[in-house]
């Protein structure tokens, strides 16, 4: 169910359809990032958010494979960082994105988990990656006081994103 169209197309590094597809999905994800950035809510702890843009990443992973998902996610994070979140925000988000992408791809490879489970793990890993970068930047391990909060918010956000992605995938297939 994962790599349907890409297997047939020649494994060139940057086929036109890949570029077009990724560009489209990155644009969509960027809009989600924007929508989320303009929702005025402040949970008090930096790093807690829904991450609806990750619906696109998850869908890309299941529909087109790891390469698309990675491309969409990285492009989205860099652009959203430059546009909305600032450089530090981008740094955190980039770390989170890389860690959660790796986790998603691995969990997806095992074939044991549903979309929801993969997304839940991704949410947690995303927050963990951010926390590691924050700890490295601030050079203060006491920031791990945030860990449980970010853990649970990551689980919740991941599950919600996963359910949304599963619904989208159900329609898309």
């Amino acid at each position, binding site marked *: 169910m994962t790599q349907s169209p890409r297997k047939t197309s020649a494994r060139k590094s940057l086929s036109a359809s890949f570029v077009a597809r990724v560009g489209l999905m990155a644009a969509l994800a960027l809009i989600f990032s924007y929508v989320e950035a303009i929702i005025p809510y402040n949970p008090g702890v930096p790093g807690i958010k829904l991450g609806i843009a990750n619906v696109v990443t998850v869908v890309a992973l299941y529909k087109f494979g790891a390469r698309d998902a990675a491309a969409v996610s990285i492009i989205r994070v860099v652009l959203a960082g430059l546009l909305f979140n600032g450089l530090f925000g981008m740094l955190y988000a980039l770390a989170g994105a890389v860690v959660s992408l790796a986790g998603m791809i691995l969990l997806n490879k095992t074939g044991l988990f549903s979309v929801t489970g993969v997304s839940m793990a991704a949410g947690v890993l995303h927050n963990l990656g951010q926390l590691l970068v924050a700890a490295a930047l601030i050079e*203060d391990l006491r920031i791990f006081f945030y860990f*449980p909060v970010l853990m649970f918010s990551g689980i919740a956000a991941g599950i919600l994103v996963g359910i949304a992605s599963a619904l989208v995938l159900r329609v898309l297939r």
Partner: protein
Amino acid sequence: MKQFIRKADIILFIVLVIVGLAASAALTLSHGEAGSSAKVIIESGGDLYARYPLAEDRTVVVPAPKQKAVDAPEADPDEAPSAQYDYYNVVVISGGTVSVTEASCKNQVCVKHGAISGPGESIVCLPNRLVVRIDNGSEKGGGYDSVTS
């Protein structure tokens, strides 16, 4: 897409929740415990006398201001503080806790206060105008929020 939620998901969920709960339990248990950068701040007569890392064990003899007014030689570690000073406190930093083990004063409140270990805690000796407190060591702006954008 076979099912919405599979068995492995639930197992993963439980594992993650347990890790989260364990982490918060560990943090709660160690709540108030000073971080590795915590400092012991000793103030004498209202002025900063010395600042030491909480993690390093040491014994400090602090002469009181009224002692200093007379003569304040450097504390000789080989001699008993009571033999050197009339007014003094002995502050001991050991194993992440701070206590005043000896004081020249009559009421000995600071000695009876016992050991402190958490940030923000303090021992005060009024007769010798001594304050020993633990600071969490984040003097650069204080909060995490100074870097998050």
